[in-house]
């Protein structure tokens, strides 16, 4: 009797397990084939000399020593980080500013929201081409405007510092609307009563912003910073189209570095090792963020 019960319980459990996995299978199968498998495969490839045609020979950790003893990897990793450092604060604060501007009841509120968000629905190649032309030294609108204002024109795409700013400006213009919309949603969740209470206490606008708005947005803010850092580290399209990594290699990013090593130099093994190192780096970033977020909460 007891044994039978146990057996049927065990059977039931197994059946339950399978039915749950059946629901998950359509998601798990692509995940295994196109995520887990490539991750492992990448680690394997990285230990070999490998071309687009396949394996040539086992080289152990040679690819890794080659990468880590060459300054290029650090340089391009830094470039990607540098972009993050430039773009994230701007995009977050400008996004917040735009959200605050149109959160108030103002004429044409929806129209403004549409305008700020509009660039986000364009494809990366469209925005890159628009800004490629905008930043053209001779026939670009940006320099013309600068000159009209009595400022000196800038070689946007061919001088190292300005090239980064060109990409930052294009990126901010493109995606800040996305950040703004999220902040708007966050603002709507802050209880109006808090502001009313503050008004009774005679709090200044700045105080209300500092002690009600900002804390109310903190969870949106954290998610956004996380999103934007990852997005910044993935930078490729704008650079590929607007500067091709140049001038020189100043705007070459880590993703473009992997692309060039793998597909232009046909050194898959080396590129896979770069990928693996970059994956580890991404995991580290995620861990740091997790720790920072948790510490703030406790």
């Amino acid at each position, binding site marked *: 009797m007891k044994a039978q019960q146990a057996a049927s319980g065990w059977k039931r459990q197994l059946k339950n397990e399978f039915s749950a996995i059946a629901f998950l299978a359509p998601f798990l199968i692509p995940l295994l084939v196109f995520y887990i498998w490539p991750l492992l495969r990448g680690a394997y490839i990285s230990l070999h*000399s490998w*071309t*687009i*045609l396949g394996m040539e020979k086992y080289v152990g950790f040679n690819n890794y020593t*080659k990468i880590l003893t060459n300054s290029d990897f650090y340089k391009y990793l830094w470039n990607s980080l540098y972009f993050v450092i430039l773009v994230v604060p701007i995009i977050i604060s400008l996004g917040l500013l735009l959200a605050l501007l149109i959160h108030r009841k103002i004429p044409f509120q929806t129209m403004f929201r549409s305008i700020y968000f509009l660039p986000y629905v364009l494809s990366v190649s469209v925005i890159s081409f628009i800004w490629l032309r905008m930043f053209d*030294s001779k026939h670009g609108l940006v320099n013309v405007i600068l000159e009209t204002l009595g400022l000196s024109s800038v*070689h946007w*795409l*061919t*001088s*190292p510092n300005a090239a980064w700013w060109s990409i930052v400006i294009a990126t901010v213009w493109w995606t800040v609307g996305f950040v703004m919309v999220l902040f708007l949603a966050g603002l709507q969740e802050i209880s109006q009563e808090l502001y009313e209470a503050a008004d009774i206490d005679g709090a200044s606008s700045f105080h209300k912003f500092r002690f009600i708005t900002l804390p109310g947005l903190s969870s949106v803010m954290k998610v956004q910073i996380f999103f934007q850092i990852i997005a910044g580290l993935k930078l490729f399209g704008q650079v590929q189209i607007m500067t*091709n*990594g*140049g*001038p*020189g*290699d*100043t705007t070459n990013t880590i993703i473009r570095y992997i692309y*060039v090593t793998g*597909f*232009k*130099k*046909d*050194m898959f093994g080396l590129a896979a090792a770069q990928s693996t190192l970059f994956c580890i780096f991404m995991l580290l970033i995620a861990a740091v963020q997790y720790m920072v977020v948790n510490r703030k909460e406790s």
Partner: protein
Amino acid sequence: MARRNRFTTMLFLMLAIVLIAAGCSSKGNSSANSGKAAETNSGTGSGGTSGPVEITFWNLFGGGEGDFVDQIVDGFNGSQQEVKVKTLRLESGEYYAKFGTALASGKGPDVAVAHADRLAPFVKAGQLSALSELTEKAGFDFSEITDSNVESVSYDGIPYAVPIDTHFHMFYYNKDLLGEAGLLNEDGTPNFGEISPEGFKQFLTEIKSKVPGITPFSVNTPYFHEPFYNLYYQAGGSILTDDLSQADINNEKAIDVLKFYLNLYDQGLSDINDKTPWDTFHSGKSATWFGGVWEAGWHLGEEGLNVGITSIPPIFGSETHWAASHTLVIPEYVTEEKQVAAMKFMKYFTLEGGKIWAQAGHVPAAKAVTASDEYMNLPYREEFVASQKTVKHAPKTDRYNAIDTVVKDVLQAVIFKTMTPEDGVKGMEKDINEILQN
């Protein structure tokens, strides 16, 4: 509840519609492609009755050259009914990345342009069709092509490509601007003065002082490796040692040439911010330019632009200068029917198209074309033929793709001063040696 059900029904209806749409477009794709579906189709459709064989032709020619290619393709499509060529033009900077992946995946062109110096790795990997048998089927004979060109595409005596040209740079100058600067001889050739790095700088400085508002010398900054090779080869340099086992680029000659160019930029004799120097010269805003022979038709044909062409002066000593050669190849994965069709196109391109191609300025590979009066009567072709005698091709290594990428990247870093010339050549040496050992 009714609303909910309507939602799920709608959702699946949409899914069904989209999947059908997807099915349609992927069907369209595979028939347009060189895929397997097309193979069986044309196999059963048996020769010629079901319309022309359509082949896809990849090339990397932009701007002026591209127009000549279009003329040749149109000419071919109009000249017969059996084969129809469709052109896909790719960005030259990414061309070999795309071509390499296409060959590896078996999905891509039926016939493609490739530089002779890029063939080695593809031949070694067995990704290109050997052409010996195909030539007979298309009635083509390699003896119609200049011997040195045939040799450049042959591996163990077997040709893997049909050469179409040799191309290199010439010294282009704007006669009006040089005239204004008082640097034109009576016969319309430039008066260089002393031919040396300093002498050439002097020549450019003279232009700068006499004709303000223009760039004395346009340098091909976006493709800086080409002007670099020209002067580096003049100085007697090489990329690799003769046995192709090691880099030979970390030397004074390379550093001198780089410093020379950096100096031109610094002194305002050339404009580093010019992303389209060929256009600057073409629109009369610069006085001199190392331009490709392929630009001859474009510049000379421009009304109001008074251009002269001569060999690049031996600024760094010798007359040796950079050259490359375009060829046409058929990937190995292409079906036999399409291979024959592609071979017919290649034959047409080099023999008939060669005449049009010659107008662009490339020195055609077909013997009959270069020997014709029609060719020699084109302007400056005697200079081209003379200049062709001192060219130097890239080393014939199957790692050329990677080496070329390294050289291009480092040179860009040097001219934009994120690296010193000394560090640059040292870095190139290290990277190239790593590539060769791999």
